[in-house]
């Protein structure tokens, strides 16, 4: 999706018809900058894109149900229609589209509006340049837009930079996960696997049940029962997940209240530090356990190999003593003589003669040449294997020592945490005491639900293993009759297809996560001022860590600026992943696997509250974030460093000229040495904004 123009009619502050053209990357200029005073309509402009495409608005748009310009409403006669319209023109996969959304309402007395019929139209431009309407049905037209850019993904492409750091906070974990899943096109996979296993397979099994003997029938009944249990457990885990998330939010709120109590500042800070240490211990322990597992699976057998080494050495020694090694005749030589039945001296070799019998004995003995080679190789390998065995023992000792230290540190930290929690609870302050009591209850509740969730997850694994075994058993059971055999084949095919979809999904999930992780890490390294490491965790959480000694531990209390940069790096990595997806269509498209393409970024206040250094860094990145970028900024956000960093990349610039009814509110804006009207006195009794292009 490459944006060409955005036309507005009576949308929020924008009275009448107004239009913006976007820089498309010609001569390396892919950035469009829109300057606007507070209240001039930057957020409205961002929302114009979103409303046009999805009929939605962002949370920060006040009075979002009233999109119609107030002057247009005031000027309309009572009983006449008032339109608000946004028209977006863009190229998508080589075709130019025009998407237009219009809402028509009827003016009632007191400048109120009634009705509000929304109409969505799409036109496509043929290669010959002719415009023609796309799809006759409005629902299908919306579906088409959703397929171009799914609604779950738009918050990553049209967003407010000041709030983007939310993506790096716990409350956005689900949103980030949902974004990545959409990026993976995972919903289709999840639903396919779910429907095949939960709906299709049982339906076929029910039919097969009526054609089955007792053994097959019992197995089918068992399968139905297991699936029922599995679904119950999946629902329970989902329920616990929601409850746990809610409890975390509640606990977080209470802890913030605690931190705000003057007498508890030191203690809550200490608790925060101790929790960081605890998490670092857990991470370090998980790493050691993983190293131990790797080491054991690679070299663990060497711990038990000494008797085999000794036995091998003895065998070699005995063979050498008997003079069997080294063997003197190559086996192939004897075999050739016997096959040709001719001696080297030219005499024939006849079976049953003493000469033939000698050759038979030699052939048996020449087998020793191969044995000799194998034994020599084994003897040569014994020394390095013993050495590796010794190294393995040293490694395991070291890892276990490290683990003991970490676990001891963890125990100490837990004790210290318990003391701090107790001290927080022991406060004389009534508020502090009741907060501590409430938090204690919430934490107990949390632990109980976490335990329930763990148990349900364990039960689910058991059920899934049983289902797998049962599927194998069902394959072996014979169905009687053509109809039953066909149904059985269909059930097996459904099972294999569901399994294949699950495997493909797992691979895609892993690949995309690693891709995002690598890119977030790379962008962060370039931008960050601190020696932190940014990554995307297994469950798609954005994580900032730092090295403390030899241990990588989470950064506690990252600043808003840091989180903003982290979130922007994630957005950039998503854009790149989508671009990468679209570059590999031939491999995926036949299987309907790819969601991809080129997408713009439209950012309201991208420099938000950033310090100068980050402001400059983000400005340097902006042109690289996506192939097309639109930034909406106020003069306080747009400073020299941003202008300097973006020099040569800006293809189009606009000012949202605010016409205010207030006297003496005039402002002028200085851009690249030229002065422009920024806020002007309105000659009418209305406040409105006019879009002005500047050079």
């Amino acid at each position, binding site marked *: 999706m490459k944006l060409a123009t955005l036309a507005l009619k009576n949308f929020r502050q924008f009275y009448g018809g107004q239009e913006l053209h976007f820089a498309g990357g010609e001569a390396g200029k892919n950035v469009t900058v829109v300057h606007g005073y507070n209240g001039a309509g930057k957020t409205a402009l961002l929302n114009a894109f979103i409303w046009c495409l999805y009929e939605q608005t962002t949370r920060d748009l006040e009075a979002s149900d009233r999109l119609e310009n107030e002057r247009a409403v005031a000027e309309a006669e009572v009983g006449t229609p008032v339109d608000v319209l946004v028209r977006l023109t863009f190229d998508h996969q080589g075709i130019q589209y025009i998407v237009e959304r219009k809402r028509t309402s009827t003016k009632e007395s007191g400048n109120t509006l009634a009705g509000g019929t929304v109409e969505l139209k799409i036109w496509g431009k043929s290669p010959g340049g002719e415009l023609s309407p796309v799809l006759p049905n409005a629902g299908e037209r919306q579906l088409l837009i959703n*397929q171009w850019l799914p609604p779950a993904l738009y918050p990553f492409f049209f967003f407010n930079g000041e709030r983007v750091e939310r993506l790096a906070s716990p409350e956005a974990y689900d949103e980030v996960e949902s974004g990545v899943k959409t990026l993976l096109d995972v919903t289709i996979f999840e639903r396919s696997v779910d*429907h095949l296993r939960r709906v*299709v397979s049982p*339906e*076929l099994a029910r039919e097969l049940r009526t054609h089955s003997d007792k053994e097959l029938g019992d197995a089918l009944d068992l399968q139905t029962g297991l699936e029922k249990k599995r679904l119950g457990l999946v629902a329970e885990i989902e329920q616990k997940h929601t409850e746990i998330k809610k409890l975390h939010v509640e606990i977080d709120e209470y802890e913030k209240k605690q931190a705000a109590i003057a007498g508890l500042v030191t203690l809550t800070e200490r608790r925060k530090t101790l929790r960081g240490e605890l998490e670092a211990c857990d991470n370090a322990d998980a790493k050691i356990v993983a190293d131990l597992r790797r080491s054991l699976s690679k070299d663990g057998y060497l711990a038990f190999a000494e008797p085999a080494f000794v036995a091998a050495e003895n065998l070699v020694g005995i063979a050498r003593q008997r003079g069997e090694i080294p063997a003197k005749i190559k086996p192939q030589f004897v075999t050739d003589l016997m096959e040709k039945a001719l001696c080297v001296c030219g005499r024939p070799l006849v079976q049953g003669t003493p000469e033939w019998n000698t050759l038979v004995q030699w052939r048996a003995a020449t087998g020793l040449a191969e044995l000799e080679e194998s034994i020599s190789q084994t003897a040569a390998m014994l020394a390095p294997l013993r050495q590796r065995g010794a190294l393995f023992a040293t490694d395991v000792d070291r890892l276990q020592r490290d683990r003991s230290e970490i676990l001891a540190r963890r125990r100490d930290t837990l004790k210290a945490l318990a003391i701090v929690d107790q001290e927080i609870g022991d406060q004389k302050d009534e508020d502090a005491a009741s907060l501590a009591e409430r938090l204690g209850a919430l934490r107990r509740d949390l632990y109980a639900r976490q335990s329930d969730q763990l148990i349900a997850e364990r039960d689910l694994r058991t059920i899934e293993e049983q289902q797998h075994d049962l599927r194998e058993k069902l394959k072996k059971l014979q169905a009687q009759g053509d109809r039953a055999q066909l149904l059985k084949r269909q059930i097996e*095919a459904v099972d294999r*297809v569901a399994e294949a979809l699950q495997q493909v999904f797992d*691979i895609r999930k892993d*690949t995309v996560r690693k891709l995002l992780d690598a890119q977030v890490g790379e962008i962060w390294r370039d931008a960050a001022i601190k020696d932190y490491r940014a990554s995307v965790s297994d469950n798609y959480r954005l994580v900032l860590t730092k090295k403390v000694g030899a241990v990588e531990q989470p950064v506690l209390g990252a600043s808003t600026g840091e989180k903003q940069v982290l979130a922007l790096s994630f957005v950039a990595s998503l854009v790149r992943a989508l671009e990468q997806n679209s570059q590999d269509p031939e491999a995926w498209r036949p299987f*309907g696997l790819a969601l991809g393409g080129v997408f713009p970024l439209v950012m309201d206040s991208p420099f938000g509250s950033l310090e100068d250094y980050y402001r400059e860094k983000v400005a340097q990145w902006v042109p690289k974030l996506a192939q097309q970028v639109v930034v909406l900024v106020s003069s306080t956000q747009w400073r020299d460093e941003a202008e300097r960093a973006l020099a040569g990349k800006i293809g189009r610039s606009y000012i949202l000229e605010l016409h205010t009814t207030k006297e003496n509110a005039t402002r002028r804006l200085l851009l690249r040495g030229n002065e422009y009207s920024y806020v002007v006195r309105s000659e009418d009794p209305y406040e409105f904004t006019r879009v002005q292009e500047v050079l």
Partner: protein
Amino acid sequence: MSDPNAARDEIIKILSALSEHERALLNRVLKIERDHIHIPRQPHVKADLLAAVKESIK
């Protein structure tokens, strides 16, 4: 599996291990789900999927 090419090869291997009829079924299932994804209520998904199975695996 961080290498996208290796991942793609692995996926193609999994899909190629299916029989021709099963691959046809997989494609039909994905298409049915994709066509229904944005429609909130889908009483006919089940019927469509069952029909796809019965037509693909004979």
